């Protein structure tokens, strides 16, 4: 096991983080049909929350990771309440603006976040006192969390609530006539999305041991949109495949960041115009709702 190069282990860890993020976006874009550009907001909130709780209060990671997830979920609710009532265009704009706003706040609230200097020397994850030492341990940890994340997503989308999300996505007036409250179910989806992204953010913070306001930047949305849409939004495994492929591929081709972003842009444009269902379409679109007790 120790013969595996640290480089591949690193890619593995980042893949795990992106699997969580991809599912976060998938819950909104795929299952709820809402283009949320707020994932970086929840990602960053979770990262800062866990980092600060660990550094300032000395809490064990078993606690801070859960708190980070909770902070993500609460951020989803806080952002969702004003924004989900708006027109769909305004929703997209507001989610994007939220990330810009958080970047601004993080840069200027120096007392809390040390501003543009960022927070350094974030200790690795300590589970009940035991540290996660070395990339192999991290890989195992992220693999486990990825499984948890995918399982959580499955729990959500195969439940009555997941069904309601899909119903609201596909035919809102009919959903209303069936007694479903679209706003509540969308808020729930946003909170779930926030929880997943917040957890990913916390892992990121402890793994890289450094975060700064740039964490709220748009670049992860770039990658996530490609991963989720190409993988197949609204399917359980499509975004996972997308996350795996698009974390490994740019590394394998060792592209400069601008080239990678450029290619992502081109890829996104092509997918959106010509293949909006993503790869999942090729593998036969499964019942989009996943399993379901009523199947």
């Amino acid at each position, binding site marked *: 096991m120790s013969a595996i190069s640290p480089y591949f282990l690193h890619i593995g860890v980042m893949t795990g983080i992106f699997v969580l993020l991809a599912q976060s976006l998938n819950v909104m874009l795929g299952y709820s049909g809402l*283009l949320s550009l707020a994932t970086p907001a929840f990602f960053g909130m979770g990262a800062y929350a866990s980092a600060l709780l660990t550094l300032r209060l000395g809490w064990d990671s078993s606690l801070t990771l859960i708190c980070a997830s909770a902070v993500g979920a609460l951020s989803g609710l806080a952002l969702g309440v004003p924004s989900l009532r708006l027109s769909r265009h*305004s929703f997209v704009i507001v989610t994007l603006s939220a990330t810009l706003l958080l970047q601004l706040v993080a840069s200027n609230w120096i007392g809390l976040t040390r501003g543009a200097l960022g927070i350094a020397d974030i200790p690795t994850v300590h589970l009940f006192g035991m540290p996660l030492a070395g990339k192999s341990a991290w890989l195992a940890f992220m693999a486990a969390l990825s499984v948890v994340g995918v399982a959580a997503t499955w729990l959500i989308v195969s439940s009555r609530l997941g069904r309601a999300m899909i119903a609201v996505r596909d035919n809102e007036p009919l959903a209303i006539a069936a007694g479903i409250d679209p706003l509540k179910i969308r808020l729930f989806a946003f909170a779930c999305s926030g929880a997943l992204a917040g957890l990913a953010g916390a892992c990121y913070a402890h793994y890289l041991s450094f975060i700064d306001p740039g964490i709220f930047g*748009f670049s992860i949305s770039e990658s996530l*949109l490609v991963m989720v849409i190409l993988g197949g939004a609204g399917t359980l495994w499509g975004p996972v495949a997308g996350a795996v492929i698009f974390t490994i591929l740019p590394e394998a081709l060792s592209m400069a960041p601008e080239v990678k972003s450029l290619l992502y*842009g081109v890829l996104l444009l092509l997918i*959106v*115009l010509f293949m909006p269902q993503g790869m999942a379409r090729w593998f036969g679109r499964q019942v989009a709702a996943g399993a379901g007790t009523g199947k």
Partner: protein
Amino acid sequence: MDVSMLLQFLANGVSVGLGYGLAAVGLALVFGILEQVNFAHGEIYMVGAFTLWFLGQSAGVPYWLGYPVMVVAMAAFGLLLAEVVFLPTLHRPFETVILATLAVSIILQNLVRLVFGATPLHIDSPLDGMTLELGGVLFFGQRIFVSVVAIVALAGLVAFLRRTETGRAMRAMAQNKDACLMVGIDIRRVTRITAAAGAALCALAAGAMAPMFDLYPNMGTDVVFKSFAVVIIGGMGNISGAMLAGLLLGVAESFASGMLGATYRDGVGFTLMIIMLLLRPQGIFGKSVRV
């Protein structure tokens, strides 16, 4: 705090605000008529500014010539955008266009970064250093130019929308796309013209304002955000609303910056936008290509 200082804030705010308004009007036009949000709007501004830099500093074209050439070039780019993005997606869900224009913005930002590098650039303008003093208030030449361009452009746009047949077709499409088909209005043609006009207006703003700031590949993000804020405050799709909201934003920012400090300037746009969304989501004037 004396009156002349306040007047200075006002003067600065008005000129910047008119610039914001001009930059946002194109976005409002596209939204009002095509019902699409163009996320590449900021990059049109950015590419326009870089093109002007290239023409001026690299190719040695004087500002007065480079400016209109750049605007025409960006209008052509708007046409390209219409062909590649807006026309093929006429009947697709609106997220498609948002994602497509997002993709375009990513492409443009990174192309510019690769070609020009990340070092901030600067455009020299013949108006550099020119100032005019009136009653204790200092007016910078470039800012006056921005205000003039904005007012003339808006007047031109209003005249175009009101008096020409194409303009009427555009207003008709903003009201009811389906009805347009019935009266023989060519939607594809209107789409092309709207996209070109939107890009041209944005480019006009870029060319006038670019000499005042540093150019960097990311600048489109600030522009698009400010434009979104303006359009949301004024009412999505509302032309005069965009100008007035732009003015409001410019003046508010100027006072906030002057009285509270520069760090608060960018927060003003957010704050106004959030207030508007919470209290009156349709904006001050509501949606309509009202002229």
